[in-house]
């Protein structure tokens, strides 16, 4: 039981850092540019497809990852220049529609280019295998590496936002866009940087998770909704909130699926417990979100509406 608990906790943590990588970009785009971007999940999917292609071409996961990052920058920039830039001063409704259109375009394009059958990416040899945790329990090295990467990126973002000039501009931009612009900062360029940063983070998340998932055209969607919940819970525009929200959502989601039915079994008969557990488990994070919103409508660290 203890083993299962530790295992699920680690799985939750792994999903959590992944969600954080995606949510970080999303929350910055929301908070600073005030743009609803439904196409953010698409970037995660595209990252996974990129690494599947590049790793197959070069025969190496690492070279593939190296090629994926500049490709992600390119995708982010193109998307920003062609579509997103024109949406800054538009209503949320317009933003929803245009980025919904982008989701349709991306999902269909992926199907045309890569086909409908899922792709797989081989694990890099360096990180294959498992490490012993406690007793007979083992945990895959690769998942631990994902957790480490995620934490490192979170640390990097913290430094970037709190201790650099560009971070200062980002924070200032989130508080008062017009003032930053009046002080002579090219707000358009700043926005492009933020969006591209978010795109690279999401693509990167898709790339590093590709070896332990099957890469298919629907993978961006489930993640998109989860990241929305993360951003709502954490508070729009807050990286700290995104981090805590991501870990919270992921742990509740993973643990709920396993331990929900077990807990219910102590109060209900097994058959009913299983049935209700299966029904409640996928709804848990939404219930969590609803409960939190009742107490704090702006999320954990949200300042604005």
């Amino acid at each position: 039981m203890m083993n299962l608990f530790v295992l699920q906790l680690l799985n939750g943590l792994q999903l959590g850092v992944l969600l954080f990588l995606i949510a970080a970009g999303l929350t910055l785009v929301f908070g600073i540019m005030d743009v609803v971007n439904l196409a953010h999940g698409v970037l995660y999917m595209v990252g996974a497809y990129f690494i599947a292609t590049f790793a197959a071409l070069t025969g190496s996961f690492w070279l593939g990852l190296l090629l994926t990052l500049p490709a992600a920058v390119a995708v982010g920039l193109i998307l920003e220049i062609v579509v997103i830039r024109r949406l800054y001063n538009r209503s949320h409704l317009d933003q929803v529609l245009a980025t919904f259109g982008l989701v349709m375009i991306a999902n269909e394009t992926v199907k045309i280019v890569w086909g409908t059958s899922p792709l797989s990416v081989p694990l890099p040899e360096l990180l294959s295998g498992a490490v012993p945790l406690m007793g007979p329990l083992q945990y895959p090295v690769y998942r631990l590496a994902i957790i480490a990467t995620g934490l490192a990126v979170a640390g990097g973002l913290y430094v970037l936002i709190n201790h650099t000039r560009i971070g200062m501009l980002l924070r200032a931009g989130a508080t008062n866009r017009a003032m930053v612009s009046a002080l002579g900062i090219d707000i358009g360029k700043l926005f492009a940087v933020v969006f591209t940063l978010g795109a690279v983070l999401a693509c990167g998340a898709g790339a590093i998770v590709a070896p332990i998932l099957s890469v298919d055209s629907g993978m961006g969607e489930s993640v998109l909704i989860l990241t929305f919940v993360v951003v709502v819970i954490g508070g729009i525009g807050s990286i700290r909130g995104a981090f805590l929200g991501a870990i919270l959502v992921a742990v509740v989601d993973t643990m709920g699926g396993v331990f929900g039915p077990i807990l219910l079994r102590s109060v209900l008969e097994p058959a009913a417990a299983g049935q209700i557990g299966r029904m409640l488990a996928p709804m848990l994070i939404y219930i969590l979100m609803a409960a939190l919103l009742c107490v704090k409508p702006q999320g954990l660290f949200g300042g604005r509406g």
Partner: protein
Amino acid sequence: MIAQRARLATRVKVALILFALFAVFPPLAFALNDPFLILIGTRILAYAIAAMALDLILGFGAMVSFGHAAYLGFGAYAVAILSSYGISDLVVQMVVAMLGAAIFALVTGAISLRTQGVYFIMITLAFGQMAFFFFTSLSAYGGDDGVGLPQRSTLFGRDILGGDTALYYTTLVLLMVLFALCHMIVRSRFGRVLTGIRENRLRMEAIGFAPFRYQLTAFVISGCLTSVAGVLLANQAQFVSPAFMSWHRSGELIVMVVLGGIGTLSGAIGGAVAALLLEELLGMLTEHWRLWFGVFLVLMVLFSPRGITGAIRQIIGRKT
């Protein structure tokens, strides 16, 4: 005020013309020897009801609900679940669907409406997804795969809706009745308060209205009406699955409303017709119709922000 009256009258006229066209459609389909068109027509009419219900809050209340497909699901599953217990009466099914939708709308609306803007969009989307997962986990009703309906709903204990034409006209009558209802709501004091909140929330609060109560009421009404569309869709397809409530469907509903021009009711009906016809048309031309639909959406937002009505007005140069 006079201009506003005139605009309202135009909208009713547009709606009446649309209804007349809908009414002559089935004989036309028979003349073309393609009765299958009637089923497609029923689907369009049902979506028109849903789009109109969404327009009630989106257009008149500025509430961008991205979880409205959930209410289609409530309607559809009310049919599936009740008929599995032998209750096949359409009226009973609709009442139950509306009750379920009302409760869900009341609870989720009360939470979502504590927020505005981006938050509201994301939270309604999340609640829609919650409903989606709930119905996916109902293994007794097919779970992910959904469940077929052995027969259509009955009316007054008789199998009146068995024929496609009868179902079509029933849907049309409901669309007309609900249009009249929505039109009355929009014109009533309640509707004017709602529009007032859309235009200037602060001012409405200052003159003594509580926006939350009005918005929540509108949200619940909209959810109920959308569930009626769900009941009809289940009958049209004789099949119910969680796919009815996927977030893509919610997005498509918004597209319909915007396509026809928001805040006009008759526009939502026209938008539903246009969106679904475009889907069918693109679907005939290419297997990858979604790609082109997406391109169309992006271009529409970038170049014609006011939907088809906006584009038409631009072309004929009429000012509004």
